[in-house]
């Protein structure tokens, strides 16, 4: 069920608001209507699901701050409806609206909006005070939430004694202490310097992991949107031009504007292994034996191959040389020569975390899920291509393997001739010519 649902929301400022809405519905451009009124939000429709972080992203003047204020009734929409937990908040009276705010929707502000004449604790307790919670109880709760945001022991200070980052933590504590299911955050981290901002973003994600609030987050910073958002709505000139997951926005922009917008985004910090990974081709199961492994390596021209069990549980890696030796020793299974893979990634790992593993491994980085199953691999070429504006799936597997074989410090795959020879001699039980081929190794 959607927690917040906006349907065809318009917000127009000016004297002839309804006429502006009508003209816009007929297809007029908002820039032609400036004499009648300023359309801040035009035909915005979206639904926010419980427990997700929904980011509204746009440049200044795109209407995002106005939009978020229609969600808790600070502005009432000129046309359209806003439903919060099934209640159309545009149609209820002031007292009922205040009740919705106290019980369900709290907000964090860009410039913190703390009350300077109250202590940090009293600020954090503000929502509870409005609600009429007893003093002792709300002080305890305020202290608890201040601790949760990392401000343990600061309750007796005044906001002006705190740094900007700490003040916004108070703002966050105040909103969290309201214990509402919906949290609106209006450019909450935009006034902070970059390091603090990063820290706050990470803390928010961490808190969200425990609290599972429904968060609607406004920002003009695409990287922030990509980092925080489960879904992102991109706004431009009052309209929502695209709603999608960060990956969708990045890989499949709805129009040139979005494409241009995402052009500068740091893809390595947005895309995850699951976005770019490919089906693992160089895989054998541990029941296959060394011969199959060698054939697979020969086909893919690689020096090693991944091994899984029958249920695709990832076991490790076998190298061609071990296989050959093993085969010559007459063994039939791979179990003895499987080595653990140096690194493996989870599907949620960001690409930025795959660069080092990728550079250290001759094989594509294996991607394993929670149950240790091999769900895919990220070849080096795919990793690089993903940073450009290409979809990884366009790449063929041949590219990755050649990329794997060109690095100098890794031993080149054994010549296919030798593999053929080995396969032939062990398969035919022939002892001939082994000495010379061993010499090559």
């Amino acid at each position, binding site marked *: 069920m959607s927690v917040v649902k906006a349907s065809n929301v318009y917000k127009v400022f000016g004297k002839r608001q309804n006429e502006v809405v009508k003209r816009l519905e007929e297809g007029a451009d908002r820039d032609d209507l400036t004499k009648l009124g300023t359309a801040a939000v035009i035909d915005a429709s979206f639904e926010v699901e419980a427990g997700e972080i929904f980011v509204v992203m746009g440049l200044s003047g795109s209407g995002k701050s106005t939009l978020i*204020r229609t969600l808790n009734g*600070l502005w009432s929409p000129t046309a359209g409806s806003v439903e919060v937990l099934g209640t159309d908040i545009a149609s209820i009276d002031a007292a009922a609206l*205040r009740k919705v705010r106290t019980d369900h*929707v709290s*907000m964090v*502000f860009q410039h913190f*909006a703390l*009350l300077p*004449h109250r202590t940090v604790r009293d600020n954090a307790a*503000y929502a509870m005070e409005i609600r009429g919670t007893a003093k002792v109880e709300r002080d305890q709760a305020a202290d608890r939430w201040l601790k949760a945001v990392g401000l343990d022991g600061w309750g007796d200070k005044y906001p002006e004694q705190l740094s900007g980052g700490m003040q916004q933590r108070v703002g966050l504590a105040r909103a969290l202490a309201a214990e509402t299911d919906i949290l609106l955050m209006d450019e909450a981290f935009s006034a902070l310097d970059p390091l603090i901002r990063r820290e706050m973003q990470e803390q928010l994600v961490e808190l969200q992991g425990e609290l599972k609030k429904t968060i609607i987050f406004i920002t003009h910073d695409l990287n922030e949107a990509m980092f925080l958002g489960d879904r992102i709505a991109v706004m431009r000139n009052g309209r929502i031009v695209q709603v999608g997951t960060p990956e969708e926005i990045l890989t499949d922009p709805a129009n040139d504007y979005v494409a241009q917008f995402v052009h500068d985004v740091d893809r390595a910090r947005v895309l995850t292994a699951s976005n770019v990974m490919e089906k693992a081709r160089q895989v054998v199961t541990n029941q296959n034996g060394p011969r199959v492994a060698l054939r697979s390596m020969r086909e893919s021209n690689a020096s090693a191959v991944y091994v899984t069990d029958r249920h695709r549980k990832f076991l490790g890696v076998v190298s061609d040389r071990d296989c050959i030796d093993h085969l010559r020793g007459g063994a039939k299974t791979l179990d003895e020569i499987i080595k653990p893979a140096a690194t493996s990634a989870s599907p949620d790992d960001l690409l930025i975390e795959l660069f080092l593993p990728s550079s250290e491994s001759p094989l594509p980085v294996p991607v394993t899920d929670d149950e240790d199953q091999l769900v895919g691999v990220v070849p080096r070429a795919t990793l690089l291509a993903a940073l450009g504006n290409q979809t990884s799936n366009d790449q063929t597997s041949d590219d990755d393997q050649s990329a794997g074989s060109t690095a100098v410090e890794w031993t080149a795959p054994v010549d296919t001739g030798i593999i053929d020879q080995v396969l032939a001699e062990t398969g035919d039980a022939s002892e001939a010519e082994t000495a010379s081929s061993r010499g090559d190794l």
Partner: protein
Amino acid sequence: MENIRIPVGAWVDVVFDWLKENLAWFFDFITFIFTFLIDALTNVLVDLHPLVIMILLALIGWVLRSWQMAVGSLITLFFILTMDQWVSSMETLALIIIAAVIAIIIAIPVGILAARNDTASAIIRPILDFMQTMPAFVYLIPAVTFFSIGVVPGLVSTVIFALPPGVRFTELGIRGVDSETVEAGQSFGANPRQILRGVQLPLATPTIMAGINQVIMLALAMAVIAGFVGADGLGKNVVEAVATQNLPLGVESGLGVVIIAVYLDRVTAALGNAKEYPNSLIATLRNRNAKAKAAGAKADANA
């Protein structure tokens, strides 16, 4: 053109005559109340030994501003006493205090109304302009008509004259409160009264205090003019000095006004800006409290 004559003055006169005849009971009531208030306060100020008053005023200066302020007040107030202007000064002080209190009681609610309602603001603003720009002496005429000679017409015209900055600064202060902070109050479900008392008024306090400072200074200016209609005090001495070309009296009563003006200005400027005066008794006590609290917290942590 020169034949066109709109007799505004005569019309107003008719209106005022009508008011005087029909609302006499009202003006009598006002006269009774105001006379009572002024007399009571004047009696207290005059009957108390000057030293007691001096120490009290110096103490107020120390509490709100600094010990230097206290010393300065002691010296200058003693100077008033030595110029034989003490009783007149106390009468003027009583008039100012009563007028300022009445003006503030009226001005702040009107200012709040103007801040929250654009229509009210649009109506109130020109009235304030009128009140401020009309020459102060003109107020004395109808005041005497309604309240006859004495301290009451002086008080009434002082209230009218001192009122506007109180309204203006209150409106300005409330409208100037950061809109995001007001939104924060709203977004947590505060009702308009809670927002006014919990957000707007506290944040507007420095501006409102600046308005109160202005009210008091204007009240002082008008209290002197009120001497023309027979209000006792320094103003009466000034008027007498002007009428009789008595320079010594003029200088002495004038200096009394200056000293009272400086004292009131410094003290009321410090109201609401406690943080800017770290040497005030309030700030010192507050710091000591905070330190004691911090020490207590530390002791708790150690224990």
